[in-house]
């Protein structure tokens, strides 16, 4: 069951990540309470919900940055709670993009992207550089490779963050509210990069409130509140008739805040 290949209609889908009943608490506070879901290869999963719902923590449980207290996560067929001493290797197969970028501030853009391949994959300097430059090209940051993070705009920092994840050639990329710390006029360039990746069939799990992005590329959306999954479904489901009352309330509040969820859709529509 579970992993491996399953026929759905006329397509074969492969599960890349399987989150199985994950629980996590900080001290006495239960932050994630028994979350389960599967992610299929080449798809984008969007997780959204009010702050404090445990979305970021869940994301960090998935790549074992903060190992869960109970439950487990499978990457393909590997149980990440039972990897012995090899968890650093498996973690490197996930890419992660952070809300506050977390670029290494003492390194240039190029070094930020190169250090993963260099140190973790032990790829020789010149090859690592080629890989890094390709990743930077992909996010249109190649011209900035000798700059330091402090010299970049928020959008450029985040695109560098995405390149740093891409350079490791990850099987899944985890996005933790990648646009929440950005000025409104810089959100577009980051979303555009993410749309490109989604269309290239990169497997992505995104915690985000960008509903235009979700509508354009998400194959599954997960609404979380108070540490648990409230509702799961396709974007069509959520935007036409969300079943749960809490989901409806949250979505209408998002709409109040950001305008209609189509607001950034012209961006997505351009690409279609």
């Amino acid at each position, binding site marked *: 069951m579970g992993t491996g290949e399953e026929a759905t209609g006329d397509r074969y889908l492969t599960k890349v990540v399987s989150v199985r009943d994950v629980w996590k608490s900080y001290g006495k506070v239960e932050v994630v309470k028994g979350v389960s879901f599967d992610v299929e290869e080449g798809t984008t999963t969007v997780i959204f919900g009010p702050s404090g719902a445990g979305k970021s923590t869940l994301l*960090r449980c998935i*790549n074992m*940055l903060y190992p869960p207290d109970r439950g487990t996560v499978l990457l393909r067929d590997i149980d990440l709670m039972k990897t012995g001493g090899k968890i*650093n*290797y498996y*973690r*490197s*197969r*996930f*890419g*992660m993009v*952070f809300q*506050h970028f*977390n*670029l*290494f*501030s*003492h390194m240039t853009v190029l070094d930020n992207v190169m*250090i*993963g391949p260099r*140190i*973790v*994959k032990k790829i020789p300097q010149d090859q690592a550089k080629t890989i890094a430059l390709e990743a930077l090209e992909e996010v249109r940051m190649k011209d900035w490779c000798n700059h*330091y993070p*402090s*010299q970049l705009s928020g959008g450029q920092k985040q695109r560098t963050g995405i390149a*740093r*994840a891409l350079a*490791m050639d990850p099987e899944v990329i985890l996005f933790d509210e990648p646009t929440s710390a950005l000025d409104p006029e810089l959100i577009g360039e980051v979303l555009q990069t993410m749309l490109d990746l989604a269309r290239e069939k990169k497997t992505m799990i995104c915690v985000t409130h960008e509903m235009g992005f979700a509508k354009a590329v998400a194959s599954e959306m997960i609404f979380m509140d108070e540490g648990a999954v409230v509702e799961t479904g396709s974007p069509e489901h959520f935007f036409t008739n969300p079943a749960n009352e809490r989901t409806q309330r949250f979505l209408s509040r998002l709409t109040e805040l950001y305008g209609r969820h189509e607001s950034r859709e012209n961006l997505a529509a351009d690409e279609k």
Partner: protein
Amino acid sequence: MAILRVYGGRAGGLFVSTYERVMRSIPPLILIFLFYFGITTTVLEIPGFFAVTLALGLCSSGYQSQIFRGALESVGSGQMDAARSIGMSRLQAIRLVIAPQALRFALPSWANELATMIKDTSLAFVVGVAELMRRTDYVRAATFDPVVPFLVVAGIYFVIVFPITRVAGTWGQEKKRLVTGT
């Protein structure tokens, strides 16, 4: 020491913080006497130079550990998360990501501590090590001039210490500019 304090868990942290507290509360002069007279009379005879080095080293390490702890903590936890997210081990992350940044934060205060320690070496005078201060006193005794030799030696200390604080100060400013972008 500082790495143990920040990343060494409960026991490591407690050990280092106790050590820091003790060392920072004892005047270095007492430590010098303790090592010089204490060890010489009970265990084995050690030269004054060795006792002074040991005492000043221990005393200063208490302060230096504090400085580096502050610097390590000023590097946000996001840096560790990011380093580990690309597959680095904890040790790799500390060595390649956290420490280089912390060092830059620490440099100005560390230079201050270095300057203080250089000045404290004049305390070696009391256990008969022929350092700068004692030699000056020889000159005073020979010339019966209490003012000029001490003015000269003050000048020598100044010449040694001033460049250290100066260089570190500007270097620290430069790095800060780079990191904060101001």
